[in-house]
Structure formats: structure tokens, C-alpha cells
């Protein structure tokens, strides 16, 4: 049920395996991105979510957990019983999201932005462009770190290899919100843009709104599903390790 019907843009209900995939997407169109990040293409006909997932080798529980988490707009870590998920599937999802932001979304916004602000004074266009480029490179760094360190670490964990030097707590502490600065760009354009308005500029603004939300959701999935799921895995590895070496497990 919607919390407030007048503010609720999408139908907000818990999706199940037996719901039609097309209903999910039509109720809540940003889910088309979620689906594609799991590697599921369009054109699934009348099939339900369970069928489409298994056809594409996607863990349906993980898919539904993320879909419901986003549809319900939850902002807190999932409780343990809900975290028995396929980390492989989550990594595919996150990796494809990174690819989307870095290799499609940002370049696309940049092209449109540069064209849209072409008519405003050259110095203003310059600093706006520079702001955007700095931002894109920050996000790039942020996501590259995850690709280079976090994902391999998790793959190692899944194979039963821990790391003495690293645990996900390190990442958790340094994980910052990547959408803050694009929010700033949005504010600046809305409040201070000195040039003429145009359809193209409005369209860029819409893209920025959407990307801001998308990045925020992305961070939520990382902070509240991915990281807690890894911590759970770390804990179970530590426990089995303790059991094997015969230590009493005093603290867990």
C-alpha cells in the first residue's frame, strides 16, 4: 500500500515470483533498469518473474529482494533472514549498473549538457563543464575501487578464501554517497543558470533528476543489501574457521 496516495508515483506492493514481469515494469518503470542490470532482456511476453529469472540464470530471490527493496523505498539494512542471497547475482547487478553510469549515462548527459549550455557565456559553460567532469571522474574512482577491490574480495570469499588484510568494514567506512554532488549541479542549474532556457536544457535537468535518484538507490542497495550480505558471509566463514580449528566461539 502507498504511504501517501497523492505522493506515490508507483504502485507499491510486494512482488512475488508468480507476478508477471510485464506488470512489475509497467507499475514501476525504473525497474526496467534493474531488470537489465541483472542481464534480463525485454520481450519476455506473458511470463512471470520466476520464469523470466530462471530462463536468464538469475537468482529469483535476489532479484525480488532488490526489486522489493527499491519499490518499497526502504532505507535501512535488511534483516539477516532476508540476506541469504546470491552475491554473484548482486555483483552482476552492481557491475552492470557501474557500466551503465560510467559508460552510458554520464557521457550521454555530458554531450547533452555541453550542447544545452553552448549559448551561455563561455566562462560559465567552462566551469559547468569542469564541474561535471570532476564529478564524473570522482564517481569513476569510487566505482573503480569497488570493481578492483571489493568484487574480487567477495569472489574470493565465495571460494572460501578470506583476506587477512581486508574486510568489508574497511569499505563500509569509506563508502560515500556519490549522488551528493550531482544534486549540487542540479541546484546550481536550477537556481543560477544564467542563459536562456531550452527544451534541451530541461531534458538534461530531467536526466540529472533521474540519475540522482538512480545513484541514490544504487548506494542504498550497496549499503543495505550488498554490504550486510557480505558481512553475513564473513561471519559464517569466521565461524566455520573457528569450528575447524577447535576454538570456542565466544563472540558471535
Amino acid at each position, binding site marked *: 500500500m502507498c504511504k501517501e496516495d497523492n505522493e506515490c508515483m508507483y504502485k507499491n506492493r510486494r512482488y512475488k515470483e508468480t507476478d508477471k514481469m510485464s506488470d512489475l515494469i509497467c507499475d514501476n518503470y525504473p525497474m526496467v533498469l534493474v531488470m537489465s542490470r541483472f542481464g534480463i532482456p525485454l520481450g519476455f511476453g506473458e511470463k512471470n518473474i520466476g520464469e523470466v529469472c530462471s530462463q536468464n540464470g538469475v537468482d529469483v530471490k535476489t532479484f525480488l529482494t532488490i526489486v522489493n527493496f527499491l519499490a518499497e523505498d526502504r*532505507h535501512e539494512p535488511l534483516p539477516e533472514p532476508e540476506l541469504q542471497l546470491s552475491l554473484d547475482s548482486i555483483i552482476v547487478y552492481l557491475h552492470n549498473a557501474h557500466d551503465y553510469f560510467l559508460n552510458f549515462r554520464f557521457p550521454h548527459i555530458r554531450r547533452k549538457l555541453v550542447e544545452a549550455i553552448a549559448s551561455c557565456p563561455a*566562462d*560559465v559553460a567552462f*566551469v559547468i563543464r569542469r*564541474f561535471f567532469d570532476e564529478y564524473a571522474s570522482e564517481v569513476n574512482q569510487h566505482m573503480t575501487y569497488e570493481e578492483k577491490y571489493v568484487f574480487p574480495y567477495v569472489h574470493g570469499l565465495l571460494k572460501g578464501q578470506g583476506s587477512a588484510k581486508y574486510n568489508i568494514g574497511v569499505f563500509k*567506512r569509506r563508502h560515500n554517497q556519490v549522488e551528493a554532488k550531482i544534486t*549540487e549541479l542540479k541546484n546550481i542549474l536550477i*537556481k543560477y*543558470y*544564467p542563459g536562456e532556457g531550452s527544451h534541451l536544457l530541461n531534458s538534461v535537468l530531467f536526466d540529472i533528476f533521474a540519475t540522482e535518484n538512480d545513484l541514490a538507490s544504487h548506494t542504498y542497495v550497496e549499503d543495505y543489501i550488498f554490504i550486510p550480505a557480505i558481512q553475513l558471509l564473513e561471519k559464517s566463514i569466521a565461524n566455520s574457521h573457528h569450528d575447524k580449528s577447535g576454538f570456542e566461539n565466544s563472540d558471535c
Partner: protein
Amino acid sequence: MISPDLKIAIAESSLILRLGMEAVLHQLTGLRIQVTEVGEGESLAESLHICHPDVLLVNPVMIGGSVGIKQLKNECDALHLKYVALLSVQVPAEMLRLYDEQISIYDTPDAIKQKLDVLCNEMSSEDGADDEQQTLSSREKEIVVCVVKGMTNREIADKLFLSTHTVITHRRNIARKLQIHSASGLTIYAIVNKLVDLSEISVNGEK
């Protein structure tokens, strides 16, 4: 998931009270609230550090009474954070002295809404410069120019004969008034408003 009006952290060991409180908060109309839950006293300071809430709704008993709240305030050093005691039992008045407000689990949603509104107003009036929240004072404009030119707080302080502490306060007010937090964002503001010339910043501004 547009940025919320109010970020609230609920620190309460009872899951039922936590979730109940959260449900009530989400029901309040007219406020977009983002809630973070904290179930253990030990992880509280860290959570506050990570999620920077505007309001902390905390069970005063869970964090160890008056000593606990004092310690917490010292530890997390968040000047703008409002501390609200979440009361499920009666506690000595002394324990509540350091809180900005109290909410009882028997409060009606309207009463809670009213208390949060008051806190929100306090917060925005602390933002300084009363109603003209958007316009910068001439001192603040000077500081924007310095920041944009890539000067450090120390250098700005020396140039304008201020303490670094005052510079930091000014910068915080600027960020809040303009909703711009980064130096490159301030650069756009400064160029658009003709506070500086591009030629002045390109020299130092390149990082």
C-alpha cells in the same frame, strides 16, 4: 528517492519500538523523512558519523543515562544534531536535561509532528541570516572568492584577518545558504555572479 527534508536516526534496542516509531514517522504528512535505525548503543557514534542525521531519537536508558548522552555529544561533535529522548518508561528529569526535546511512545502523530516542526524551525533559524537565506553577506562573498581561488582556510584567515574558526563557520553558512558544498560548485556560483574572473582561477583552480 529525492533527498529528504529530515534525516532521523532512531536508537532504541527494542525492534518493535524502533519499527513502530519509524512507521509513525513515515505517516506524518508534509515531511519527507529518512530513517536510520540503530539497535545497539555501541554502534551509535559510528552510525551518526556515517549517516549525519538531523535528529537523533534515542532511548536515554540505552545509551547510559546522563553520562551517556554527555559522552555521545562529545564523541560525535555534531553541532546541528538535535537530540530527542524517546521515552517508553518514566525516567528521572535529570537524565533529560541535555536533550532538545522528548517524544513519548504515547504521543499522538500530531504531537510528534508538532515537535519535529519546532526542531526544524530551530534548525533553519540557526542557519543564520534570518529570512534572507539565499543572499550572501559581503564577507561571505569575499570568502567564496578566496575558496574559488584555491586558498586554504589558513590562508583565507590570514588574508582577511580572521581566525580559521571564523572562516570555517562562514564556509558552513555559505554551504547551507547556497546548497553548494564543493569548491568547484562555488566556482560556478562565483563566475555566474561575476564575483571572479575565469582568468583569476584557472591559475590556482586546476587540481
